[in-house]
């Protein structure tokens, strides 16, 4: 499982990341609103994520399927 060091490292990264945030107004978000900037996998990646789920032991946390249906082939 995850070690204490990993968790502390992750917490430090999150705190530092959040601390460096600046307030961005709605009118300043034209670059962030670009379709390529979406913080999710593309719809066209749906089936790529499905086959990766079947061909590898790790899964989840990527917007793909995490259960349901067999996937045993």
């Amino acid at each position, binding site marked *: *499982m*995850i070690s204490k060091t*990993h968790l502390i490292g*992750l917490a430090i990264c*999150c705190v530092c*990341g*959040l601390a*460096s*945030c*600046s*307030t*961005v*107004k*709605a009118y*300043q*978000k034209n*670059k*962030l609103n*670009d*379709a*390529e*900037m*979406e*913080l*999710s996998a*593309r*719809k*066209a*990646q*749906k*089936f*790529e994520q*499905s*086959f*990766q789920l*079947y*061909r*590898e*032991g*790790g*899964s*989840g*946390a*990527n917007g793909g399927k*995490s*259960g*349901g*249906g*067999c996937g*045993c*082939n």
Partner: protein
Amino acid sequence: MRKIYLGVLALYLGIAASHAQTTMPPPVKDSTNYQSRKLKVDEVNLVSAYYQQDGNHSAVTGGIGTESLTDFANTIDLQLSNYGKKGRKNTFGFELGIDHYTSASSDKIDPLSISSASREDVRIYPSLSWTSTNEKTGNSFGFTGSYSHEFDYQSFGGAFSLTRLSANKNTQFDFKAQAFLDTWKVILPVELRPAGYGSGEEHDKRALDYSPRNSFSTSFSLSQVINTRLQALLVVEPSYQHGLLATKYQRDYFTDGSERVENLPDSRYKLPIAVRLNYFLSDMFIVRTFYRYYTDNWGITAHTAELEVPIKFTPFFSLSPFYRYNNQQGTKYFAPYGQHSPTETYYTSDYDLSTLQSHFFGSGIRFAPPKGVLGWQHLSMLELRYGHYTRSTDLASDIISLNLKFK
């Protein structure tokens, strides 16, 4: 099979043709704040993919033999919305997926049969969702129900989701709880079936066992705008599976020459933690990154990293080369063909669960012109992706995907 290909083609052409014939009236500016209670179609997405793989470590034959497989997968997803009495936006989603796959290894469940039960099959999976959103705050909640059916497997799913946005809309928290209640028809390799045990094939009326497999997961995600060019997402998605988690038509061979069906624990805890970071480098280049750490109680740990750099030749046309690397420490229950000890309680020769490294690379192109793709007003986006996958256990595959978005 041909019917599925032709059906999908007809669906694409039908939607495209119906929109192509539509003459759009000039847009009229709405000076009121009227919000329609009538249900309107927001968007329709069609996603199709063709996948083919080959390898030489099939779990059905104990870690040796062909892994040749093809899958033609399609989904149509329809999003509709209206406004309720209190001004909240209701979004309704309907998705229907149909996959057709052929699997050479599944054909080895009964090698003497002309066609084994799972040599080829069709999976059908519809889902319905409803989300209620307060557009002023951005906060929302919703429910999803889903179903999946293939010849040896049925799944019922349900999910609840919740979104909360900060007042400045720079921080978003999402929560999702999901449950899948599945039932699996227990098909056994022909030589390991008890007397009178069915094959699972349609014409075979002999009884066989059914086993449950239930999956429960929760997802916590936090997205944060860091500055005008950079935003990040952190996702933690613990999940738990219980029931028949081994695939009972997969064989295992032991050092004493004996043969048994795969046996794995009936519960599995998974913990993936992922981070996405997207950076708007310039008007031409965007950098999309993803990293995931995964661990579970079967002893699998994995590090997955993805990098994609969309190159925007115009605001409406981009080329997106991508690369994904995965490094997996396999489960403690894995051993190759003929290397399991007869004293082991749990065993598998499924190379998907072994120690491996994989590389996946390719490119996508995306067109989203304001007047519609090829001048079709309603075809607002076309995306085509190709990827090649190689795995250190001698497996290679290719996938080509197409996404058409209609608005």
